[in-house]
């Protein structure tokens, strides 16, 4: 067991967790931030993507202890003053989600893409999202949503 101190969605948190606790488990089980989803056990699906110190990360690939002291943003932290982020708005407007399970990871990953590439092409969007699996949408409206968000961010 060890003490994990993080700033999560702008709030300082400190919790005891066993050393093998994954960041994804820490967020879901210790902080009850269940918006971060677990869709696989091989770090392939991307449903658990969060931002650690501003960069997207599959939270099942890091131990909570590895990121001790970091700033973490989860899907729950993307709104500001109750207003959805332009990426969230774009997903809603363009039907970029159906069952919603992959959505948190997909949105967090897409937000990071636009941080790094303000006007990505279709191909660049599809390449970037290669680590996020969606079984519902066929990706077309996700790509459209990312392009739409790029005009708003």
């Amino acid at each position, binding site marked *: 067991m060890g003490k994990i101190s993080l700033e999560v969605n702008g709030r300082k948190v400190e919790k005891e967790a*066993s050393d093998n606790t994954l960041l994804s488990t820490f967020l*879901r089980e210790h902080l009850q*931030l*269940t*918006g*971060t*989803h*677990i*869709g*696989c*056990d*091989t770090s*392939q*699906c991307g*449903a658990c993507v969060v931002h650690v110190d501003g960069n997207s990360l599959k939270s099942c690939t890091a131990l909570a202890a590895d990121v001790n002291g970091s700033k973490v943003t*989860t*899907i*729950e932290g*993307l*709104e500001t003053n109750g207003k*959805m982020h332009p990426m*969230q708005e774009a*997903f*809603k*407007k363009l*039907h970029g*989600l*159906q*069952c*919603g*399970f*992959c*959505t*948190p990871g997909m*949105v967090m990953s897409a937000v990071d893409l636009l941080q790094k590439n303000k006007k990505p092409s*279709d*191909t660049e*969007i*599809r*390449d970037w*999202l*290669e680590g*996020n*699996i*969606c*079984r*519902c*949408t*066929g*990706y*077309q*409206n*996700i*790509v459209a949503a990312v392009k739409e968000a790029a005009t708003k961010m």
Partner: protein
Amino acid sequence: MASLVGSRVERKEDKRFLTGKGRYTADINLANQTYAIFVRSPHARASIKKLNIDKALKSSGVVSILTGKEIADDKIGGLIAGWAIRSEDGTEMKCPGNPPLAKDNVNFVGDPVAVVIAESLAEAKEAAEKVEVDYKVLKAVTSTADAINGDAIHEGIDKNLCFDWLLGDRQKVKEAFDKADKVISIDIINNRLIPNAMEPRACVADYNAASEEITLYTTSQNPHLSRLIMSAFGNVAPEHKLRVVAPDVGGGFGSKINVYNEDIVCSWAAKKINRAIKWVAERSESFLTDIHGRDHVTHAELAVTKDGKFLGFKNETIANLGAYARVFGTVTPTYLFGPCATGVYEIPAAYTNVKAVYTNTAPVDAYRGAGRPEATYTIERLVEKASMELGIDKTELRIKNFPTAFPFKQTLVHTVDSGDYVAGMEKAKQMADYKGFEARRKESEAKGKLRGIGVTSYFEACGIAPSAAVMSLGCGVGLWESAEVRFNPTGQVTVYTGSHSHGQSHQTTFAQIAADELGVPIENIDIVHGDTDKGTFGMGTYGSRSLAVGGIAIVNACKKIVEKGKRVTAKMLEANPEDVEFKDGEFIVSKSNKKKTIGEVAFACYLPGVRDEMKSPLPEGDEPGLKETSFYDPSNFSFPAGTHIAEVEIDPETGHVKLEKYTACDDFGRIINPMVVEGQVHGGLAQGIGQALYENAEYDETGQLMTGSYMDYTMPRADNFPEFNIGYTCTHATTNPLGVKGCGEAGAIAAPPTVMNAVIDALGGQEVTMPATAEKVWKACKNLKKSNAKAA
């Protein structure tokens, strides 16, 4: 008030999903809950010689360990096949017992033998490692084609044969083939797929000792059906003491229709230990134990005249059921397959014969399309081959055999009420620039690439399954749907639907329908589903039935509300009920300026006498309150149809297939929300293209799943697809008041033959099995080079 039906209304459910507030089963934690881990067979076929839990029981944090013995002692029933199928010789199908925990024999890798329940997940995992099972490993049967010749895996089931079913007339087909100028034949494999909803299965079971009630939160597409099966066949608890809740469910695609072992075991065990139990599948467990889809081996023949008229069709199929027959396991390769196997064509004589076999693999059941993708793949691959062999353009050959009039009495079972297949074909050709293909082929050739074009025309039977239709086929269960429309006194509306949304957008599209019917703003309408305590009964979501069956139940319940509203208005305004009209949320007495809003009428129904004009009670014969129910049983299936066209470019140096263009032109009848329908088409296409180019579930000869993770099973990614070009034609269904047909499965049905026809066209007619991986295609390219060299 503008009509909402037909509008791109943004989804009411999205905000919670987009802000991390969705509530999926794995997000639920109950006070004092325990954690379950299932001990599963590592062997595909074995008998259990000894099972020792002594060491495991001593492991830290263990609350209980239960095995097949306890579940048998408590007379908890097993998993069942929902549909009875009779063989051609009249005998009943043969189904083995499928206990929730295996006691004597295991029949596939992942078959559970015990459950370990502990205070924490880590402790449950550790204790599960200490359960000792002594297996006698037996030779596994894994091949679909050879299962009949393998050892009988279930006692009393010869040749591993569940049934040998026939639909159609062999004699008539023989006569048709005797008259044929040419017979086109094909051998195809419809590859096994794993549905892979992104949310792994999970359940949380709770027991309330005071009310003696079990509550099961589970990842289900049909909570009422689950409760019925668990109660009537599983003997878990009587229905009034069993509540099943399917909260937000992260995709299903058929894989969450079934009641699973874990649902029954956790519910039963929660009562036994008098504590809540949580179980969440790891993805590797999902791969092993979720139902799989497809897995057919087919030989089919088409008898044709030299000018391309179809005369007869034969379909001999072996369908793999896996280890056990589950809920839709037996109906998928029969009534969902056979009747659709003649496709959109007038073929005077046809039969489909299906031998359903057991193997030591995961159970095979309904996966998006269920039977209709297999049927469409068979006929459309065959028709494409016929066009090559007859030298007739693939679109002309199809048009030549389309029905000339509707209703279209299809060869085997269905009477298709409406459609216009020629219009669909013409529009698809235009959208795909079919004419320009030869020029594009030449351009590809100039770059050293091979280009191919493939076409599919399909129809499907949706709105599963009208009682009248299925009972006439000899199936026991008709599938209607229910709706309850409840007004609050102050005018908002709650609609309970027995249908279930796990991505399909019910909260929005069903509210659009109710808003139009009732003239109530959409924001004042809540769609509620997924909880057996909140509605009487429902059949759930599968077979593109939500709108065509569940949606109509809502319409009918709303119409009853309006009828009552007219009577109440007449009483309130001292008019004849026949003189009251309803429009845009207002009851108007004709030829007068007297009217009541539906909100005023709702208030009066609950609180008669509160307002001045309502001094008298409700009309004679009417009780207070404003709530109506409909149980809607459609008169027939609905029949979406369309034509899809794909173009691929192959690099002969690598065998890589690039899907260059995909055009879908579908007729779904009336469309409630075009945005939602587009999403359904895109998703179906991705799964269908996935089957054609990427996905394959493979077992080795010992029954080990070789594709048991996302590292081995190719899930389609964003960079695997071009932008789909989709469009519609529209003929309304005549069998329901909305004129809707269903759209959820079309893409998964039409895409595999469309893409494969394009690949095979590019390869000069050489057969390649699905998925058309680079390796297979590269080999085919080498053969092509050799045969071209010989010809030169």
